[in-house]
């Protein structure tokens, strides 16, 4: 028994080191999670079946109402879309004039969150689409409002998404108003991001919208991320304390949007796709 426990401890420590430093264990994890998929399925059953029931037994009136409101919303969105199309072409034309490479239009896929509780001390969610749908490690995940996070583990049926508020996550952002670049670090709290290393005199205000800067090549450019909620400038400190609240409904979302970027910036020294343990894209955390 004693030799066995020593063996178990050594193997566990070796596994942890390998899982943390290198990433050879992704295949093992993926295979195991396929084997364990039935457990996830059973746990998710009450939610999926209740959704199915409410869809099946909703009344004609409810459906009519829903239809009407959806049609109204669709009309509004289409009107906005028209404006967007013209803006997009204009933008593309101007960029062509400036001779800068930029591509608009991305492939997206909608996935549902699986109702399964993961480790309570990490900000992760499980989604019901996996590598069978073409999802890869490091893929950006959005919700209807803003960036949610990125994929860190995949198996054929499900994928684990690391949210932007996890302490291991860092996201290159810029202030939408003036283009000031920074990095949004997760704090471990679901409603807070932190912008470190911004000098006291930097031009950032409460209410500023942070968007992805696209540096690092993992997230597409220009998606909203968070809104600055507090800027504290202490004259004695070298840097201002800047906090932001994610625009995505991280704790309430039920659907997630997976994005395939058409123009990944490959040559910026960005780490390639098979290093999922560096979710901090181009930058590593201090």
């Amino acid at each position, binding site marked *: *028994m004693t030799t066995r426990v020593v063996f178990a401890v050594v193997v566990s420590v070796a596994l942890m080191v390998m899982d943390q430093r290198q990433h050879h264990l992704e295949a093992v994890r993926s295979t195991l999670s396929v084997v364990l998929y039935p457990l996830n399925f059973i746990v998710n059953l009450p939610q999926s079946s209740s959704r199915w029931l409410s869809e099946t037994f909703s009344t004609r009136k409810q459906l009519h109402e829903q239809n009407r409101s959806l049609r109204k919303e669709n009309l509004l969105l289409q009107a906005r879309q028209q404006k967007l199309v013209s803006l997009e072409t204009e933008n593309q034309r101007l960029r062509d004039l400036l001779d800068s490479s930029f591509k608009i239009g991305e492939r997206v896929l909608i996935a549902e969150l699986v109702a399964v*509780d993961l480790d309570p001390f990490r900000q992760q969610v499980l989604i019901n689409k996996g590598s069978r749908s073409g999802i890869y490690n490091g893929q950006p995940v959005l919700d209807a409002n803003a960036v949610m996070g990125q994929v860190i583990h995949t198996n054929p049926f499900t994928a684990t998404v690391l949210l932007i508020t996890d302490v291991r996550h860092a996201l290159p952002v810029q202030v939408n108003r003036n283009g000031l670049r920074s990095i949004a670090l997760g704090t471990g709290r679901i409603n807070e991001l932190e912008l470190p290393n911004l000098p006291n005199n930097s031009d950032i205000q409460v209410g500023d919208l942070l968007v992805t800067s696209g540096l690092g090549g993992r997230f597409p450019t220009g998606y909203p991320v968070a809104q600055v909620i507090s800027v504290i400038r202490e004259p004695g400190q070298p840097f201002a304390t800047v906090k932001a609240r994610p625009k995505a409904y991280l704790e309430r979302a039920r659907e997630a949007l997976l994005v395939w970027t058409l123009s990944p910036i490959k040559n910026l020294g960005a780490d390639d796709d098979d290093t999922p343990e560096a979710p901090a894209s181009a930058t590593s955390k201090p």
Partner: protein
Amino acid sequence: MTLTPRRGGGIILASFLLALLLTILPLPEWARIYRPQWYTLVLIYWTTATPQRVGVGIGWLTGIIIDVLTGTLLGQHALALSLIAYITHKMHQRLRLFPIWQQSLVVLVLLLIERVLQLWIMGALGQPVPTLSFWISPLVGMLLWPWIYIILRDLRRKFQVR
């Protein structure tokens, strides 16, 4: 070993599966901190009751499964659970003789050891130190132990698990 035929492996497996399901069952946000370490409790019971069948190996395997299910580092729970199985195995004969309330206290200590190991690993990874609510689930586990013990013992007797 060969004298007593092995029986009732299905019950052991089923109780472990149930513990895994309870571990990932979605709970409302406020209830999450009270979720006991089901897998540790079940492991402690079976290691005490059938030490020749359940031990370090099963503990390690359960830990790896938990790691995959909950998305922690591979080996994080495996390390803790194999050590818990080892300690329980060492003292299973004493543990059997204890009255239930005294068993609960021992179980509390075991559950706390598991948490401390988790805390060390989280610290080594540079994750922030969790709040005090991190220590609630061992207490819940201690309070649940008598019921888990009685239910599993009755099951074991009924299906004559050896």
